[in-house]
């Protein structure tokens, strides 16, 4: 028997297989077969292969675009959006369009090839997170950009094209749809109850306990009750906060610990799966969103999205989140 569960934030229903859940080994995890390249543009020593760096974590003695860095931010050579120009909104019959103004940056998280976040030390992960936050805060100064989308694609099945791991930051001239739905849903909840729905979810998850993976002084990692994907994981700050980029140094340090641990659990349980992670944060549109709570969503890409999912928004989840949490905690 399956169960239908409704996401309380955006109202999405998902089908969860609760009777015969899939185990981690039931998913066919494809090996990461990247195209062979002779020189990696993100490795130390090859800095000339990228556009000039925007910023980097490097000792004061080393010059930009030379080796010696730990984290390096460069513009995407093939940007989805372009940084120069004014927004030009137009109608086209009954359609709306605008030119593609935005920023598209690459955050190279380590000078070493083929290392993922779990391979870095807590301190190295903290430097990466600090760079994410600094770049987001810097781009927020540009009033043309309404939303900072920070995400990572790891593995070919997740859309990565290079095996030198990196995050991407896209500054968008509008709020993307999924975030807008979360903002609307949490605002409706807040208006009625005067509470943040994410804070309420955290309370309920901590009471239920079975979906919690890890908790430290500032963050909780858990498999959400209404997951869309098997082994989906969310990381939420315990304190109600609207913007990721306003995290304190202490918070970034705590986040580095829980993020590295969580990704390590996922790698161990699912045999190094491809995954995406996305930071959901408040928009940069001058509005207040008192009911919104920033968080990270991690989605292993181990099951296929078939016609049903994309065509209707109805997801079939073969492993219930409580079972997934059980495996991820290493207690099967």
């Amino acid at each position, binding site marked *: 028997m399956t169960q239908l569960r409704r996401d309380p934030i955006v109202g999405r*229903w998902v089908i969860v297989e609760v009777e015969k859940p899939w185990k981690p080994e039931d998913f066919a995890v494809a090996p990461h077969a990247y195209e062979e390249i002779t020189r990696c543009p993100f490795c130390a020593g090859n800095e000339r292969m990228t556009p000039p760096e925007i910023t980097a974590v490097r000792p004061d003695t080393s010059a930009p675009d030379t080796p010696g860095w730990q984290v390096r931010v460069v513009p995407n050579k093939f940007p989805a959006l372009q940084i120069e120009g004014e927004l030009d909104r137009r109608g086209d019959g009954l359609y709306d369009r605008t030119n593609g103004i935005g920023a598209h940056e690459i955050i190279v998280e380590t000078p070493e090839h083929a290392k993922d976040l779990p391979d870095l030390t807590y301190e190295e992960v903290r430097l990466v997170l600090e760079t994410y936050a600094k770049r987001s805060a810097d781009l927020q100064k540009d009033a043309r950009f309404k939303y900072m989308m920070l995400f990572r694609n790891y593995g070919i099945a997740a859309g990565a094209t290079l095996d030198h791991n990196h995050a991407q930051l896209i500054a968008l001239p509008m709020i993307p749809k999924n975030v807008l739905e979360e903002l609307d849903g949490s605002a409706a909840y807040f208006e009625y109850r005067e509470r943040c729905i994410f804070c309420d979810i955290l309370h309920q998850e901590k009471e239920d306990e079975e979906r919690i993976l890890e908790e430290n002084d500032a963050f909780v990692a858990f498999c959400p009750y209404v997951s869309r994907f098997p082994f989906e994981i969310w990381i939420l700050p315990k304190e109600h906060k609207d913007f990721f980029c306003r995290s304190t140094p202490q918070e970034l340090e705590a986040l580095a610990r829980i993020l590295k641990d969580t990704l390590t659990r996922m790698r161990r349980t699912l045999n190094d799966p491809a995954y995406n992670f996305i930071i959901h944060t408040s928009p940069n549109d001058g509005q207040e969103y008192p009911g919104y709570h920033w968080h990270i969503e991690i989605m292993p890409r181990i099951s*296929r999205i078939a016609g049903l999912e994309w065509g209707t928004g*109805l997801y079939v989840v073969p492993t219930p989140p409580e079972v997934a949490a059980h495996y991820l905690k290493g207690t099967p």
Partner: protein
Amino acid sequence: MPELRRDPIIGRWVIIAVERARRPKGVRPNPPAASEKECPFCEGREATTPPEIFAIRKEGTAADTPGWQTRVVPSRTPFLKIEGKITHRGKGLYDVINGIGAHEIIVETPQHIENIADLDEAQIAKGITCWIDRFKDLVRDERFKYVQVYKNYGASSGGGTIRHTRSQLIATPITPKRIKEELRGAKRYFDYHERCIFCDIIRQELESKARVVADADGFVALAPYASRFPFETWILPKEHGCDFSGTSVENRLYFGRMIKKVLGKLRDGLEDPPYNFVLHTAPFRHPKAKAGYWKTIAEDYHWHLEIIPRLTPSAGFEWGTGFYICPVSPEEAAKYLREVEGP
């Protein structure tokens, strides 16, 4: 310069990378096919499926024996189960329903053919008749709110290893999110304009022609203005109708012809790519539904078929944001597909 476009129905923005337009290669990591001899959907192997629910078969032949042309059977691994009463309950701030519903397989030919584009239009129309028959039966079940017809073709689209063309249908006790958004968007447009947004789209597209893939009797195929995926194509009936199950016998044949034409163009022009298609139609309008809820649906909603070739892996950015980057503009895609001869 890339362009951002907004879907006029549900409001989703997509990035159209107009200057990076290129024809993606059909990627198709094919796992080994299951042996044809063991195909449960071939004529003669009726005993390997659960008993049939419906079939178009030669007069005088018995159920679950050869002699059929199209056949509907329950899924052996259903997402939802047909027996039982629906129970709604709350779990803290969450809502839960037990997994009641129907999950059926429509086998579109007794022959071991993989792609529906390789059937003739009359045969495709028989599959369409099966969908309609199942709709008309399931609508009587008050537990259900929506019937979703869809197809996964090719292993990387979720089509599995059995290479025998079939579509699937699930009846759900809820209206899925995307459908609801579309219904709301269409109603909002109608409330203001007193016109169907889909009819307006068809009118504008037929006038500009830039995104029309094919225009034939009864149906039009177009690359939507705010396509999420390269070569995304919608097939719409030119005549307004909210409910797919009202399609006339003549229009079923025209619909079959258009499906064959579009999927044949994809097969020939894009190296036989995997694809999904999904039928969007009005939800069941049971008399006990909220008063006034469906008051204008007959006028504001327009059923259609959405086809997505699976050419690019959709990445985290897309899934996490609902904001898609489409590397081929719909104008390029439509032009390319128009020029592919197809079947």
